[in-house]
């Protein structure tokens, strides 16, 4: 397929059977080829992100309308953007290690805002985040990229101080401890 355009497509809707089938069929009919996709369902709502390559003649708006038409009027919220190939090639933060941040405690408003502002102020990029509140208890699990030059010990102290005198348990650990204990094929680092 040449020349070609790369788009990134996002769909949000209340979950039901057949959303993926409809949207991918629409892409196929436009001669699009899916390069990568990831979907998740949270509290009954579905979202998907798709990277796909289309013939040069296909416009973003054409893709959006075709995807939206696979649902009832107003059912699917679709957005389409031109994909910048450099986005995947260049890390958001250079020279970094992946850490796992976890926060657990009594639910209250503003926790995620506070922690994400703390992280961004230190140039720490969130690559995955999952949080939920259940029976008044809040749990946040996040994988973050930490610049290698950062003092991890000091970062841990600062994190603990964020919710001093509260019941929050905050931990911040290099991801290898989780990989080593869960992945059969983990080979580790170092000597």
């Amino acid at each position, binding site marked *: 397929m040449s020349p070609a355009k790369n788009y990134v497509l996002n769909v949000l809707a209340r979950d039901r059977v057949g959303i993926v089938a409809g949207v991918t069929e629409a892409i196929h009919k436009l001669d699009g080829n899916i390069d990568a996709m990831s979907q998740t369902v949270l509290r009954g709502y579905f979202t998907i992100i798709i990277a796909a390559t289309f013939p040069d003649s296909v416009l973003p708006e054409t893709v959006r309308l075709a995807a939206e038409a696979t649902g009832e009027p107003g059912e699917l919220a679709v957005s389409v953007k031109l994909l910048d190939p450099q986005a995947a090639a260049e890390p958001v933060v250079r020279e970094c290690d992946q850490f796992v941040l976890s926060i657990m405690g009594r639910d209250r408003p503003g926790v995620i805002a506070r922690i994400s502002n703390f992280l961004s102020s230190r140039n720490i990029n969130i690559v995955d985040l999952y949080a939920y509140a259940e029976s008044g208890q809040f749990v946040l699990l996040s994988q973050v990229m930490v610049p290698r030059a950062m003092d991890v010990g000091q970062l841990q102290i600062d994190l603990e101080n964020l919710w001093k005198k509260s019941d929050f348990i905050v*931990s911040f650990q290099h991801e290898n401890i989780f*990989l080593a204990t869960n992945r059969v094929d983990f080979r580790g680092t170092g*000597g």
Partner: protein
Amino acid sequence: MLRSEDIIATLRMLRQENLDVRAVTFGVNLMECAGPDISQVCDKIRRKISSKAGRLVPVCREISEKYGIPVVNKRLAVSAVSALAEGHGETGMTKIAATLDESAKDIGVDLVGGYTALVQKGMTPGERTLIGTLPEVLSRTERVCASVNVASTAAGINMDAILLLGEVLLQTAKKTADRDGFGCAKLVIFANIPEDNPFMAGAYLGAGEPECVVNIGVSGPGVVKNALVRLRESCPNPTLGDIAEQIKLTSFRVTRVGELIGREVAAQLGVPFGIVDLSLAPTPKMGDSVGEILQAMGVTKIGSPGSTAALAMLNDAVKKGGMFASSSVGGLSGAFIPVSEDCALADAVAKGYLTLEKLEAMTSVCSVGLDMIAVPGNINADTLAGIIADEAAIGVVNGKTTAVRMIPVPGKKAGDMAVFGGLFGESVVLPVRNLRGSGDFVRQGGRIPAPLHSLKN
């Protein structure tokens, strides 16, 4: 990308189940420090330990922070001092012991192992001297740990050395009588001593080991016990197969943590990584006990019939999980049953469920032998030698490591309490039956020949 449930499973082990790294032991070969001038020998030892292992404690702290996992003990294991100090006599040996004690303190480690002699087939003058200095060294130094290998499957059992050590135990206990004979807690008498054991008091750097090496002792028994409690919550009537599987899975995770930390410590210190020792090593803390695992398996009165089978199953499952997790498994790698260091075992002894004879039977299926057992202070050297010989025979015939770490508690009789403090714990003094019934046997001296390696029934 990590799954949420994997993250939560690891966090639970860290936060609720006492997952830690029990021991990071830095082995350093000191043979190049040998020489005719004892002052120079001591200077060289001091310099070498400082230059090679000086960063051990800060590196462990840094890695502990990075992974959010405690590294409980940082230790040193050095070449067998008997070989290093051969020819220097008592004064030289004790000076080296004092130097090791100071060096360990300087770099911030709590124990240093290697005041060691290997005498399974016979004793050199230096080895005999080292054994003779044990009461002095173990009473005068704070951090020095000693070990003597008196037997091996290949060489048999050196009864002359064993008898000598019976006397040494009594003298050491006497010199540390104000601490219930605590000096003896720092002496391990081995059959088939491993060269790469990271656990104290029996660690030393074997002759076949690298110049420097990092060996790791994995987490304690609390993780396994809690895993079994969780298994019972999710499955009210697990089979023994289910229990073995749960132990295996837990051991896999625990071993992986040990290897991860060990490799990183070694890399940062610029030395090779050696082994992960899978042994479950208890501490006197509640929730950190091998005895509690046996209880969680259903042996409510430890020492009852079935205890040996349960321990055998536990030990085997731990090894299977650990072996799959790492290709660098070594050391002792078995469940420890040190009575005073394990609250459930100490309790079983106090209640009379667990006897010396049953403990001996249990050591035939686990490492590392009769460990941290307080016996009456009026026991004689012959009887102590007989107990050591029995334990050595179990190791020699079964081709495994066994050991004796026994404390004759001065002035105390069976049923009294002996308190060693800290990680060494406390225990009721165990009765020893049939005293003075085997003196003629042990006093004959010589060596019990190496056993047959076929006809294994």
